[in-house]
């Protein structure tokens, strides 16, 4: 777990020496004819800091840039580049590159065919479904067969194989919120701590209750979403706006996946869990 980083000590006031050094570094003043060694050293330190900070950081990957831009552009319309996964741990550069390349290709195809504006269907760019499409979410999870099937199909179409591109959580939540029409949005991230506790308790007790097909996902689908072979699953009781509810937790050896049973697209992946 992360410890709170200790803040640097910031001087309460700017000393005369620092003020003079800052003015020199900023070009507002010149070095005196006989500068003290202390001033020279301070100017050098300030120069060093400024020289580093003024160097523009290089973006790591051009394909990733295109993916980021495509996601941002899609966020203003009624269609989105579907994000289904939040990256939490170090990702494979190759996997991200492949996913980004796939996303770029799809975006390029959709741009040339005017999909952004036409509203036609596309694999990577999905029009947000109308609330009626998922009217069945009001049913009990066990009885919402049609809804689950529809959502599972949607998810399969929207997923990129392997690692999905890095996409911000906010967009994923916005997307899922639309699907969960009529129900309070379930912020799965808020159950992260409880799920992580279960993750460790599960290893201690080895008490597993494996669901045959949670949320309509096949074993292969679970593996794809989890990023590893599923090890088991549990229903985690949670309280949402004063009501008791359950969310599905799918465990792996290193990762876990939280799933809203009323909206199987609302998922939250926690990767590389360490004590």
């Amino acid at each position, binding site marked *: 777990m992360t410890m709170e980083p200790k803040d640097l*000590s910031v*001087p309460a006031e700017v*000393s005369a020496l620092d003020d003079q050094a800052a003015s020199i570094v900023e070009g507002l003043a010149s070095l005196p004819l006989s500068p003290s060694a202390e001033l020279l050293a301070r100017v050098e330190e300030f120069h060093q800091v400024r020289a580093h*900070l003024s160097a523009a950081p290089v973006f790591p990957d051009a394909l990733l840039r295109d993916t980021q*831009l495509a996601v941002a552009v899609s966020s203003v319309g009624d269609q989105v580049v579907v994000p289904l996964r939040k990256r939490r741990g170090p990702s494979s550069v190759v996997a991200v590159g492949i996913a980004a390349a796939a996303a770029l290709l799809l975006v390029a195809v959709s741009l040339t065919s005017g999909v952004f504006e036409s509203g036609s269907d596309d694999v990577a760019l999905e029009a947000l479904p109308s609330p009626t499409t998922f009217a069945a979410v009001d049913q009990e999870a066990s009885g919402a067969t049609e809804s689950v099937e529809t959502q599972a199909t949607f998810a399969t179409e929207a997923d990129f194989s392997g690692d999905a591109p890095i996409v911000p959580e906010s967009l994923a939540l916005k997307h899922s919120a639309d699907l969960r029409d009529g129900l309070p949005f379930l912020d799965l991230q808020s159950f992260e701590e409880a799920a992580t506790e279960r993750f460790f308790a599960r290893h201690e007790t080895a008490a597993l209750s494996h669901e045959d097909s949670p949320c309509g996902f096949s074993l292969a689908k679970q593996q794809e979403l989890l990023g590893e072979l599923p090890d088991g699953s549990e229903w985690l009781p949670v309280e949402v706006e004063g009501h008791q509810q359950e969310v599905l937790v799918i465990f792996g050896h290193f990762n876990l996946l939280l799933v809203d049973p009323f909206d199987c697209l609302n998922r939250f992946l926690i990767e*590389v869990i*360490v004590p």
Partner: protein
Amino acid sequence: MRAAQKGDTEALDQLLRRHHDKVWGICRRLAGNDADALDATQEALIAVATRLNRFDGKSRFTTWLYRVTTNACLDELRRRARQPLVGLDAAFESVDLSAPPVDGLVADRLLIDAALARLPEEFRVAVVLRDLLDLDYAEISEILDIPPGTVRSRIARGRAALANFLRPGNQTDLSERQNL
């Protein structure tokens, strides 16, 4: 830019593409590591795209852009700071103070990155906007909505803190962290 405001997605793509490096630069410096900066950059780009129609032209576009970017990055970083596996630790861990100084320049840069990540937010933002984007006090003042005098003070104090940190022997608490 007007075309982008009116919903022309190609124009929006070009606009964001033109400024992507600056957005990334701000978020990278504020985050202190690539992983957090990537997510923060994505959030910032979305914020710019979705709020573009609110830009009324009363300020320079870049001023507005930097304000939205800064706020979006900081929001994302604050949110991530509440989660495990936060990137700031990775920044600290990337600086192996016990290792021989193979490349002094690289080591210094890693140290500055680590120090910047530990600089309190209000100072970090001011220093980054000044040194990375070379903005003057007035524009930083407009972006951060604070008086120019406060901007100058925060930059000077922030830079002094960073310079102090670089002095030999002043990274002991960092070493202690690594030995935990």
